[in-house]
């Protein structure tokens, strides 16, 4: 029994020691807990918050683009789309097959869905199909039990109600490129688009708006649990254009399927009322990415639908340039208002003979008559006397060869050559070059918008700047009043002489464009024809009478041009029309310009605050 006593004693001792050890061990853990929870608590608490908080930007709605009477040219429409959450179904393939039966999927849709499902986490929705119509949505809702994880959601997409009619002015949007993404974090958001052309690009900053921010609580795998805080962004500004969309569409109807451009401008303030380019393209196609086939079709078309011919198409101005040459001659004293020059049908310079368009010449005439008959020899001689630099100096005032300042991207400056320019390119300017430029051929190049600006400046004597933005969020931008523009450095008497010459072209007997008479009571149109060669006519062809431009292949025919303003005694509207390879300006471009001008004056958009049709409808 003594042994049992020892055994029990040892057990008791050791058990008590063990108890002390256990208490000490758990006590040590308690101390460690204190260290982690209290002493280092603040640090770990911060870590806990940074674990769970995640800030996300919310995309602001893009600003709308309106025409001058409030018609929506670019808006946001709701895009109903079917999304799919893989985690809500047990049979992904089965659900997709069911969806395919109910709303058929394209092959490329299937490939994209497969890719997205592989890349995304299972709780991030994958887009199955966009732009659902009511019928498709109804079918999805009715079959919801067969489509676990599929739900219909609404996003926005850019909508262009007038599609191709204004594609070149309004432009289009496309998904941001990788280069854009660095500039503004908003662009990384799904569905955000960047303006890629036209006003969409030029006014990108105003249209985009400011992003809002949401503070989210997220869990370990990034799933959003709830919203903690939200600051709303501001939607993009609404941009009101100077364009009258009804006028624009009526012009387009007249241009038909030609490759042409027509610009209608309020010549008192430079507001572009219509700016048409044919053929055009559908800007909505860029929203989700253009197919390669579509792109190839556009880029291989010789009528260049993607190029805004009004601002980026450069053409030799031809005879429409003669007013500028005449004004240059008057301004630098090369001729006086009454000087007469004799036209025998040609002018010789050394052994080169420059022909007038009229084989037997116009005889002796002053500036007025030369404009009226569009005599080439007269302007050859004026240009020769003034010299190219003096011509350029005046022509620059009418926007030739300089930036018009139009608020559209990609506008070209054309070309107004000078001796210095020629020298820069390693050549010597010759008098022959000057003579060519005297009738708007040779090196001179201008865009239809520059031509419209040119006529506007002749008509008003002010350096109006063409522009298409009229208001931003309802605020009238500067440039809407004539006083916003300085008076040109050209004598008013010279301008008046030229205007009278343009009047004579249309309204006096013997003028080159009798077809362009307006036919409206009490109003006359003053204009100038032009047809600019794109190919030098050989002497042989000319002398043997074989030259008939209408028989040439399309791309070698001369461009047909007409510029005009009206009403003659109180100029308000300027129109420039260029028909690519349209042959004679007087036959093709002048009637077009007349109809456009008649339309414009009838609608009179510059003097109205409400579109003519609208007032009737609402009244």
């Amino acid at each position, binding site marked *: 029994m003594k*042994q*049992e006593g*020892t*055994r029990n004693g*040892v*057990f*008791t001792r*050791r*058990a*008590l020691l*063990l*108890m002390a050890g*256990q*208490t000490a*061990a*758990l006590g040590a*853990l*308690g101390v*460690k*807990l*204190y260290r*982690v*929870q*209290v002493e*280092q*608590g*603040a*640090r*770990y*608490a911060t*870590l*806990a*918050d940074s*674990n*769970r908080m995640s800030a996300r930007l919310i995309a602001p709605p893009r600003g709308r683009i309106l025409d001058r009477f409030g018609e929506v040219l670019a808006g946001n429409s709701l895009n109903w789309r079917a999304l799919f959450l893989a985690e809500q179904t047990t049979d992904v393939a089965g659900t997709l097959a069911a969806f395919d039966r109910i709303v058929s999927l394209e092959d490329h849709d299937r490939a994209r869905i497969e890719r997205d499902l592989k890349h995304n986490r299972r709780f991030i929705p994958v887009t199955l199909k966009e732009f659902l119509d009511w019928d498709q949505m109804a079918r999805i809702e009715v079959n919801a039990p067969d489509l676990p994880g599929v739900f219909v959601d609404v996003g926005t997409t850019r909508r262009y109600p007038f599609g191709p009619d204004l594609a070149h002015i309004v432009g289009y949007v496309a998904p941001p490129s990788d280069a854009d993404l660095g500039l503004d974090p908003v662009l990384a958001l799904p569905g955000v688009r960047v303006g890629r052309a036209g006003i969409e690009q030029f006014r990108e900053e105003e249209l985009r708006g400011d992003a809002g921010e949401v503070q989210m*609580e*997220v*869990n*370990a*795998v990034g799933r959003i*649990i709830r919203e903690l805080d939200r600051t709303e962004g501001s939607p993009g500004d609404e941009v009101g254009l100077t364009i009258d969309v009804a006028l624009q569409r009526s012009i387009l109807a007249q241009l038909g399927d030609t490759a042409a451009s027509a610009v209608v401008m309020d010549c008192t303030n430079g507001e572009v009322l219509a700016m048409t380019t044919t053929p055009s393209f559908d800007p909505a196609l860029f929203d989700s990415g253009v197919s390669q086939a579509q792109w190839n079709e556009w880029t291989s078309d010789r009528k260049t639908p993607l190029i805004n011919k009004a601002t980026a198409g450069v053409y030799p101005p031809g005879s429409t340039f003669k007013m500028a040459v005449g004004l240059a001659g008057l301004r630098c004293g090369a001729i006086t208002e009454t000087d007469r020059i004799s036209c025998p049908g040609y002018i010789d310079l050394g052994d080169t003979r420059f022909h007038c368009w009229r084989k037997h010449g116009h005889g002796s005439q002053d500036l007025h008559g030369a404009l009226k008959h569009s005599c080439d020899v007269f302007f050859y001689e004026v240009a020769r006397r003034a010299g190219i630099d003096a011509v350029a100096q005046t022509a620059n005032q009418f926007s030739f060869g300089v930036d018009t300042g139009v608020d559209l991207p990609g506008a070209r400056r054309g070309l107004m050559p000078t001796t210095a320019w020629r020298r820069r390119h390693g050549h010597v300017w010759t008098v022959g070059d000057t003579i060519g430029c005297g009738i708007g051929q040779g090196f001179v190049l201008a865009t239809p918008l520059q031509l419209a600006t040119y006529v506007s400046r002749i008509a008003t004597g002010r350096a109006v700047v063409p522009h298409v933005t009229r208001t931003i969020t309802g605020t009238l931008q500067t440039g809407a009043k004539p006083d916003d523009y300085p008076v040109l450095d050209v004598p008013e008497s010279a301008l008046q002489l030229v205007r009278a010459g343009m009047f004579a072209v249309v309204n006096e007997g013997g003028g080159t464009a009798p077809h362009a008479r307006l036919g409206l009571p009490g109003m006359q149109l003053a204009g100038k024809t032009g047809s600019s060669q794109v190919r030098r006519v050989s002497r042989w062809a000319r002398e043997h009478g074989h030259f008939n431009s209408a028989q040439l292949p399309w791309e070698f025919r001369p461009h047909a041009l007409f510029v005009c303003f009206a009403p003659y005694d109180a100029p308000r509207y300027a129109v420039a029309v260029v028909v690519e390879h349209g042959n004679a300006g007087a036959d093709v471009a002048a009637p077009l310009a007349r109809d456009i001008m008649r339309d414009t004056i009838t609608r009179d958009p510059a003097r109205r605050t409400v579109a003519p049709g609208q007032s009737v409808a609402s009244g």
Partner: protein
Amino acid sequence: MISERRLLRAEPDFGLLTKLWRINWLYVLLLCALAGCGYVALYSAGGGPEPYAWRHGLRFGFSLVMMLSLAMVDIRLVARFSWPIYAAALALLVMVLKMGHVGKGAERWLELGPVQLQPSEIMKVALAMALAHWFNRASWARVGNPLFLLPPALAILAPVALILKEPNLGTAFITGVVGLSVLVGAGMRLWQMAILAIPVPFLATVAYHHLHDYQRARITTFLNPESDPLGAGYNIIQSKIALGSGGMWGRGFMQGTQAHLNFLPEKQTDFIFSIVAEEWGLVGALALLTLLLAIILGGMLVALRCRHQYGRLLALGISVNMFMYVFVNVAMVVGAIPVGGVPLPLVSHGGSAMLTVMFAMGLLMSVHVHRDVVFPDKRDALD
């Protein structure tokens, strides 16, 4: 084969009512309180009674009935089945290696119909029973004989080796410690302990080389958790963040962001203590720790109060087992030792662990109820 009736006949005043009276109801209350803590923590972890808390409560209710019934069984009858139970547990361990369910890269589970068994959990209790039985009638002198210690040493090593092979480092370690503690309680000499301690560093080096990559990663990341914040160090860092975000007073019930946002892995099992510490702060964590300590020391008191060696050693083994659960789990949660799959008894979610813990508690209560019974001097006398 003896019946319980024959044993009771030896002590006629020992009826069922007396037994119920002799149960330490305060101790039962402590267990209920612990399970209650588990219910609250699991309620928060699951964001409501589903999916964890409700089942936890149900299991505890069932286990409590089992525990109280077990407490009624005569400890001498239990002692008779010590070695058969040990043998069965060993067989299960072999089976789990052959056909076990692989979870997280280790074979630990055995599926027997609807019940999932973790034989290593059963083994710890069975080992304590077997060793207690071995030393029950051993005299002080006999225990001093190294040859007498050899069979129990083998009885410890066999399951430890099998559990290591699963591999479940934490449980193997706990099993070894439980076995050793019984040896120590039984009167193992100090010099014997010293000899045992000598090869430990050597064995540790060998063991390290046989560790699985994930286990080695745990040790290296334990030494420097920030070295791999998204990989093996993730658990430790996130657990510490949860503790730290709790602070002194806690974020409040159901307000723990770490657990609710799933930053804490296995929050309902191994890391349940993190939830308690995050939501109830240091105060709550220490309160829970104190409750656990009370249960452990309570078990030790049962051992001290018992008048027979079998009960003493079994109660000691069960208490040490309980202590090891708590120590390893909490130390892991506070980042003091590398992570291992050890649950917090009666708090963590899991049926197998709950059942084995309550089974052990039933044995403990049986020891307490039968603390004064006399084991017959000779085994034959019982037959």
